[in-house]
């Protein structure tokens, strides 16, 4: 089952109170259209799969053309 499965489960709304970007610890914006949590500053988007936000930096996609500057840790 991939992230593009038929009806993406929405995020538990109360989580938005606590969740921040694990790298910058700054707030995130919930994008309903793509079901992602966006860090505008760093230009990365964390996917929400089956209602579970994936907050591992390595799993995030970049929202801009160029990749983020800092080196990411290996999983």
């Amino acid at each position, binding site marked *: 089952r991939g992230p593009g499965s038929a009806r993406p489960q929405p995020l538990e709304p*109360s989580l938005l109170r606590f969740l921040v*970007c694990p790298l910058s610890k700054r707030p995130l914006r919930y994008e309903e259209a793509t079901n992602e949590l966006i860090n505008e500053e760093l230009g990365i988007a964390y996917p929400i799969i089956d*209602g*579970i936000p994936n907050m591992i930096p390595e799993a995030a996609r970049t929202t801009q053309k160029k990749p983020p500057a800092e080196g990411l840790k290996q999983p």
Partner: protein
Amino acid sequence: RALLVRRGGALRALCGSVRGLAAGQETHFGFQTVTEAERREKIYQVFESVAKKYDIMNDSMTLGIHRVWKDILMHKMNPSPGTLLLDVAGGTGDIAFRFINYVRSVRERQLQRKLKHHQNLSWQEISESYQEDKFKSLGDSQVVVCDINKEMLKVGKQKAQHLGYSEGLSWVLGNAEELPFDDDKFDVYTIAFGIRNVTRIDLALQEAYRVLKPGGRFLCLEFSHVSNPLLSRLYDLYSFQVIPVLGEVIAGDWKSYQYLVESIRRFPPQEELKAMIEDAGFLKVDYQNLNLGIVAIHSGFKL
């Protein structure tokens, strides 16, 4: 033999720290020496492999006693309704479900006591008060389960659905060393049988400190060290002779359970872990041995 391994390991780690910049810091995976990156990967694979049989294996290996340890942790926590709990490495939900049960029963007793005082009210008034409390059967308590392993979370979420847990429970895929939570948010942070698998324990402890509210409590339930020589020998025998075999028979996975047993031996003993917790800034750090040190609960406060 274990002492030699430990000393050898420490020496290797020292050399590793000089050489280790390209391949990543050297560390251990059970009794093997690996880079940090390799360790993370191997541990991820262990839990990916055992996820579906995790609960059964826990029951088999500990003869069900792990349930008692977790119950003791919950009683020690003694959460009141309205508590915000972050359960890290909480994968299959054991601690989270116990938390929900606990605050629910505390809440029920609160409501019962409240109703007793309503002897002189009309039926209308009583039913109204019942209704507003009905939507707060947990009294605003919440638990966030955070785990780095997708498979473990998947099992946890399925269990929750199966057992009927939904209110006040949420799941996040995240790294204990780099938590995706804001500062000063949680009343309690727990990590049960998880910290042993974290590669940089110091970072995980710092993150635990960061996300806790002032006054918040850190609780760690983990395998520890047995000082009693007779029990220690029996425990070693059981660990190295029985557990990997159980792993093979029940989960078809000898290696993962070999890792488990080795990782317990590699993990810092009670006093050393206490010092690490204090280094992260926690105060009034203490520990309680269960079963003569087979397991220990460490506790600290952010004050």
